């Protein structure tokens, strides 16, 4: 057991080392892409905790992403907060939203859970539009470059942006790597596999699911806040249903219930669209075809297939 238990840690640190070093070798364009990918991967990792590890399919995570985004954006522009406390406001807003929605939506399960989360997220989107005087609705607002400074470092600079994204990613990645192997994470997996059995082993499964929802929402909010901070834009598009579907797609592609899956999924999807849109304006056709093929031949996603075929220890 000891030899095998070292492999996941090596994988985690190997991935972080690679991401850290890639900045030195990548051209600026791709480094910028990778910064964006890492932030979106944080979102996907938050989603994966709920979907991949706990087995709850939410269609409302855009609300948590947007809560983080608007929490940071509005507290910076409205209250004049500096980035660090504003980031905390963003994460706090997403945590609160996920606690409330989890409390209500977890009374349902399966398809009903999907519908209820979707409905709440749509309500959240409409709230953003309704308070257009503050949120600027669809048009959104820009966070000025001058405000996006932490300790004198301009976060819109290439290196600063990359490494801020990297730190955000690393913290979430390491935290989740620990969490999914801790008793809490193991219990979530048991609930995913067979909720009734977990209950009849003495676990309060509803409470576990609520906690998973809150952690998932908080991480999604951190991603939203990070996105707004690093790319300087806050808009209602990020609260639409499309942004609830994206993390589901990323996680499915990369491998649900795997630690590395979300990063792989975002990376693949990002470059699939990036490359295919350079070839044709019908790039969604190419992307769609790739997705269909992947679902046919690797239904468990990249990392899921790897775990099934080669590395059974993949966390």
């Amino acid at each position, binding site marked *: 057991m000891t030899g095998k238990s070292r492999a996941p840690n090596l994988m985690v640190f190997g991935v972080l080392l690679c991401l850290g070093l890639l900045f030195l070798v990548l051209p600026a364009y791709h480094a910028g892409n990778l910064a964006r990918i890492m932030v979106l991967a944080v979102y996907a990792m938050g989603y994966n905790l709920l979907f991949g590890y706990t087995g709850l399919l939410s269609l409302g995570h855009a609300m948590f992403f947007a809560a983080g985004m608007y929490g940071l954006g509005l507290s910076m522009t409205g209250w004049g907060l500096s980035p660090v406390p504003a980031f905390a406001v963003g994460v706090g807003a997403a945590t609160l939203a996920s606690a409330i929605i989890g409390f209500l939506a977890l009374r349902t399960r399966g398809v009903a859970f999907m519908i209820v989360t979707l409905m709440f997220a749509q309500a959240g989107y409409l709230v953003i539009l309704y308070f257009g005087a503050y949120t600027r609705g669809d048009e959104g607002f820009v966070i000025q470059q001058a405000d996006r400074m932490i300790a004198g470092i301009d976060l819109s600079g290439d290196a600063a942006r990359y490494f801020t994204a990297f730190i955000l990613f690393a913290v979430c990645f390491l935290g989740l790597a620990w969490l999914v192997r801790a008793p809490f994470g193991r219990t979530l997996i048991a609930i995913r596999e*067979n909720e009734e059995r977990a209950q*009849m082993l*003495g676990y309060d499964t509803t409470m576990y699911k609520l906690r998973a929802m809150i952690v998932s929402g908080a991480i999604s909010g951190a991603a939203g806040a990070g996105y707004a901070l690093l790319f300087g834009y806050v808009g209602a598009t990020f609260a639409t249903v499309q942004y609830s579907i994206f993390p589901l797609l990323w996680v499915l592609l990369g491998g649900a219930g795997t630690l590395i899956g979300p990063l792989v999924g975002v990376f693949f999807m990002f470059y699939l669209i990036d490359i295919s849109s350079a070839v044709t304006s019908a790039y969604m056709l190419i992307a769609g075809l790739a997705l269909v093929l992947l679902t046919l031949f690797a239904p468990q996603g990249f990392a899921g297939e790897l775990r099934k075929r080669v590395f059974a220890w993949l966390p």
Partner: protein
Amino acid sequence: MAAVEILKTVGLTKTYAGLKANTDVNFVLPRGKVTALIGPNGAGKSTFVGMLSGRTPATSGDVFFEGRNINALPAHKRIQLGIAYTFQITSVFAGLSVHENVAVAARRIAGGDQSALNARVGEALARVGLSERADQIAGDLSYGHQRVLEIAMGLVQAPKIFILDEPTQGLSDSEVEDFIALIGSLAGETTVLLIEHNMSVVMRTADFITVLNNGSVLARGTPEQVRADRHVQAAYLGTPDA
């Protein structure tokens, strides 16, 4: 029955849309003994133990555990009190390893101490003879082994009451023998409530037998008393003069 009771039901009743599955069941489970619950198919045995474990909400009546009324407790709270339950229809974590299946059951009690947990899991697997299969995926096990894994998941919790719903169903003869030996090894420390169709298992393991028929208690007593009971013979075992 002079033994001290660990669990008692008073007037326990379950009605499914007007159909009575259990009617006024007054039942006593003596501490540290093996009690078998028998009865023809549809007698309401599984419904009854479902109401004990909290899996099935009772329509009316009371359940007392160690003198305390546990009617209001949800299933997971009852399990936390020390009532372990194995499912009649095999219900393991099919996608997880055998070791992890038992570890999930043990972790609630053992907490985060990994070595204590592993020792506990190893011991439970050894007791049911699954040690060599610890790394296999539970869903890949044979049906018999999955049944035995269910038992290990109960054992590892070191329960006060161990409810087994048809544990020997689908086991081979030698596995049934192992099961009987296992139940024998629990004697004194664990209270066992066994639902069982295999009469030889019942007669060899049980200290007391309760017979359910049409959702009500038909007879209770030691195996000899129950065997001699004319009502039981008529309703269940079947006799030429019935």
